[in-house]
């Protein structure tokens, strides 16, 4: 076994890799513009969660009040790993960076299977070329979101 084999990074899911490539192709200021597009494209919270943030999980790693909840499909009943995962976020408009992080995770992960979501590497947030434009400190918020998403998926399928 060689060192290079050990160092191979865990790949991102295809949709997420596509987003990462889009960011990588841009210069730093344009990366912020794309992040703003993700912020504005974050899907609205469905009515069943509106006004009931207590049924969602707050992401304490974020510098703004953001809440998320994960839903896992019931089917196929005998193959929990193949069930589809759906993500829902609540983040205020005055926190566009946090909304942008949520938008990336939503577009990159929503609809994937349980097994695919659980396989997303922990360092995925650092693969969007945002460290320079946003600062590594601020990226910790996305790390917190991702780990809470994976934890919720595991709790809902591994009991």
């Amino acid at each position, binding site marked *: 076994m060689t060192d290079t084999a050990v160092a191979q990074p865990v790949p991102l899911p295809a949709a997420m890799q596509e987003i990462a490539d889009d960011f990588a192709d841009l210069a730093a200021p344009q990366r912020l513009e794309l992040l703003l597009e993700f912020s504005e494209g974050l899907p609205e919270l469905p009515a069943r969660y509106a006004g009931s943030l207590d049924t969602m999980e707050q992401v304490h*790693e974020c510098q703004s009040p953001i809440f998320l909840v994960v839903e896992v499909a019931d089917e196929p009943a005998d193959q929990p790993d193949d069930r589809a995962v759906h993500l829902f976020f609540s983040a205020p408009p005055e926190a566009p960076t946090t909304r942008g992080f949520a938008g990336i995770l939503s577009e990159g992960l929503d609809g994937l299977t349980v097994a695919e979501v659980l396989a997303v590497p922990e360092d995925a947030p650092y693969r969007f070329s945002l460290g320079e434009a946003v600062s590594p400190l601020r990226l910790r918020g996305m790390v917190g979101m991702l780990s809470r998403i994976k934890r919720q998926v595991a709790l809902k399928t591994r009991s």
Partner: protein
Amino acid sequence: MPESPDLSAPSTGSASTGSAPTEPASTDSAFAAYAHPERLVSTQWLADQIEAGGVGGPDGIVVLESDEDVLLYDTGHIPGSLKLDWHQDLNDPVLRDYVDAEQFAAVMSARGVGRDSTVVIYGDKNNWWAAYALWVMSLFGHEDVRLLDGGRAKWSAEGRELTRDVPQVAPLAGDSAYPVVERDDAPIRAFKDDVLAHLGGPLVDVRSPGEYSGELLHMPDYPQEGAMRGGHIPGAKSVPWARAANEDGTFKSREDLEAIYLQEQGLSPADATIAYCRIGERSSHTWFVLTHLLGFDAVRNYDGSWTEWGNAVRVPVEQGAPK
């Protein structure tokens, strides 16, 4: 002990230089009771300046937005304002320190700020980062830099215009470029060794009560920014920054501020005082209050704050609620 630093330089004599489009003392009579009223402007005053064409252009006021959220400016900002990001523009990318004289001059020139420009800063989160940017500009001795009272939230709440138009600024160059001026940290910035030498003197801890007592290692609802130990610097008074602010984010009146900092906490404007928080942004807000609103002579901001002190080996730490 540095010789009594004159932190109030702009308040003496500058009003008589005359040629500036804005008279420092004329911002708003509501501020008149503060020690240095020319350091604050109201949303109405700024709106009037914009209306009158006094923002931007040569000799115009430069309005800067400095936010915690790096994208907020891009979602809409006060017409004519420019973004100044605390992380990208004011911090060195490698060293834990602020930018150096040349980098600072470049950041200023790119925004059309000359050494004599009147600069108004505003931002999100009760102007924490705006106050922090103002403090960093003060390290470089920029004389006329002011805060928009109430910040971005008040401007928005009043239904005032926000725009996505980013002004095209011709960077200052040649003789009009911002001069390369060395930072003078000593009067208003404290390092860890300065704090150690100051122990026993007045210190103000502006963090939340839980951070002060040591129950929490970071502010409520904020990311963990890694401190090995919880508590406060021995002898520090606990005065959370928000006590200086009204509900709408504006500063409390001088009378109310004196009731808190002087009568209740026993601080004195004549004493050298050090303020700190977690990384120096909330204590910039309190530094502004003590220095410019209450007229303290020698306040230093310890920007290393708890992320340094709470990780330093064998520095004294006190735990528990305020006595």
